[in-house]
């Protein structure tokens, strides 16, 4: 802290002047992050509710649609995201301990898992695309209820698409804090941005934890009846 600072008492350089203490600043910031995550819960909650309503209404056709999900890619991707959450949690822990190099290393591994997830998702998307399972003019489905199956695929693309967009944004945020960490912006005292990006990353993981059974598992073996 420079001598010309107007503050009367010495404090952490990360402390904004409108907060009394570092703790107060961190608590306020974490609460703000949770308020944002609640809006995200409602954003995805709307799609999950729509999914439930139409699954209930068109149960048979939705089972048919579910048969076209790739069980193994879905399961592998779940494992990939869970691993990324572990490395993210360890990254946040390293930032709490002020271990700069370790923070950067864990964040970079997290990015790798995130990119891996999107890559696998891309393989799946490509398969659905060439099979005519993208809703719209080119949708093809050889079965008795193509319109209702198309609705299933609309939900599939919208939910996984918005989830993938969140992963993509997450990768950007993790890359940014990794860069800032490398530059030495965070330390034992001030590392709140790392924590908040961690919260975002774990939230996106939780969304997938529910998408995985709903889309890939609950009817992948069972024929409609």
């Amino acid at each position, binding site marked *: 802290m420079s001598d010309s600072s107007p503050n009367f008492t010495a404090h952490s350089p990360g402390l904004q002047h409108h907060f009394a203490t570092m*703790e107060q600043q*961190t*608590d306020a910031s*974490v*609460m703000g992050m*949770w*308020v944002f*995550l*609640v809006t995200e*819960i*409602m954003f995805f*909650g*709307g799609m*999950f*509710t729509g999914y*439930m*309503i139409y699954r*209930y*209404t068109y149960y048979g056709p939705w089972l048919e649609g579910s048969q076209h999900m790739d*069980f193994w890619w879905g*399961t592998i991707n*779940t*494992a990939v995201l*869970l*691993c990324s*959450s*572990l490395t*993210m*949690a*360890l990254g946040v*822990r390293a930032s*709490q*301990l002020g271990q700069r190099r370790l923070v950067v290393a864990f964040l970079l591994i997290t990015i790798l898992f995130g990119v891996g997830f999107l890559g696998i998702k891309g393989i799946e998307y490509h398969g659905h695309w060439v099979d005519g399972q993208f809703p719209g003019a080119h949708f093809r489905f050889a079965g008795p209820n193509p319109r209702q199956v198309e609705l299933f695929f609309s939900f599939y693309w919208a939910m996984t698409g918005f989830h993938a967009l969140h992963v993509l944004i997450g990768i950007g945020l993790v890359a940014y804090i990794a860069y800032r960490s490398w530059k030495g912006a965070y330390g034992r005292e001030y590392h709140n941005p790392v924590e908040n990006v*961690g*919260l975002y990353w*774990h*939230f996106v*993981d*939780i969304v997938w*934890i*529910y998408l*995985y*059974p*709903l889309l890939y*598992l*609950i*009817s*992948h*073996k*069972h024929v409609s009846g």
Partner: protein
Amino acid sequence: MSEHIATKKTYILVWMSLMCLTAATAGASYLELGRFNIVLAMVIATCKALLVALIFMGVKYISQKITLVVIVAGLFWLFILVSLSMTDTISRSWR
């Protein structure tokens, strides 16, 4: 309040539990349980979500009460959204 720092061991145990639960839910999808397939899948998913939220996101260690109020309020609003929508949808087909 001083910041809570969980041990490496805690995080690795949570991750191992999450992987085991994923294997369990994937395996359970091969069982023929009728309506209970979805119930079991959702119970396991909720266990996983709780592990992530409580430990990885540190909800268990939050000391600021107002933050907990925000989280509970968010879940309560989600509950209203789902329960009112579903009671409507399900009860319409009752004759």
